């Protein structure tokens, strides 16, 4: 499963993620970025979300459930070496670039 799929749906999501990565870089304090650096970070965030989802799903199925709960995600995060308390602090940071949610024109085809 490659993250750079050919379908236009993949491209749309990738564009959105790329914008988010750029917003996060702005947030940290960068003013501009090279394309290749942004692409690298975009690729990494895609892998991160995918890996986190896979891990959480596996933990969920290990305990005999089908729908992942917050605990499964928490265990996955801990396994991946994330500090949950630091995550809370990160969420409380006030100055963030927010991307307004778009009106959904049609139901997504997945």
């Amino acid at each position, binding site marked *: *499963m490659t993250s750079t799929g050919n379908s236009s*749906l993949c491209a749309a*999501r990738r564009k*959105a*993620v790329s914008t*988010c*990565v750029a*917003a*996060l*870089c702005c*947030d*940290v*304090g*960068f*003013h*501009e*970025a*090279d394309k*290749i*650096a*942004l692409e*690298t*970070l975009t690729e*990494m*965030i*895609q892998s*991160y*979300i*995918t890996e*986190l*989802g*896979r891990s*959480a*799903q596996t933990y969920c199925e290990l305990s005999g459930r*089908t*729908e*992942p*709960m*917050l*605990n499964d*995600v*928490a265990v996955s995060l801990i396994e991946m070496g*994330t500090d*949950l*308390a*630091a*995550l*809370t602090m*990160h*969420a*409380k940071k006030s100055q*963030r*670039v*927010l*991307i307004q*949610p*778009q009106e*959904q024109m049609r139901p*997504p085809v*997945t």
Partner: protein
Amino acid sequence: TNGSDVPPAGTPLAEFLQQLEDYTPTIPDTVTGYYLNRTGFDASDPRVVRMISLAAQKFISDIANDALQHCKMRGSGQSSRKVGKDKRYTLTMEDLTPALSEYGINVKKPYYFT
């Protein structure tokens, strides 16, 4: 949800759940949900999706912050020439590569990518 103290180590997850209710991550829920669905993750609980978005954001923010520190350190040697100007920081692979290597990730610039 008031105050900025670090929550006690006893029940952080329950409190965190409450806070996630009114937290809007930079990454839209639908985008994260799409990537999660591709892995077989049934992302029906928005709070779970938001927590994953938040974790991904923190991951990228931490790396970008490290890269910024590298960029500032590298620039401090040259800054004596043009003092007083507004510094504009550019994210380049030159800064990103050492930041990523701290995380154990080795990136190489592909030869064909201009």
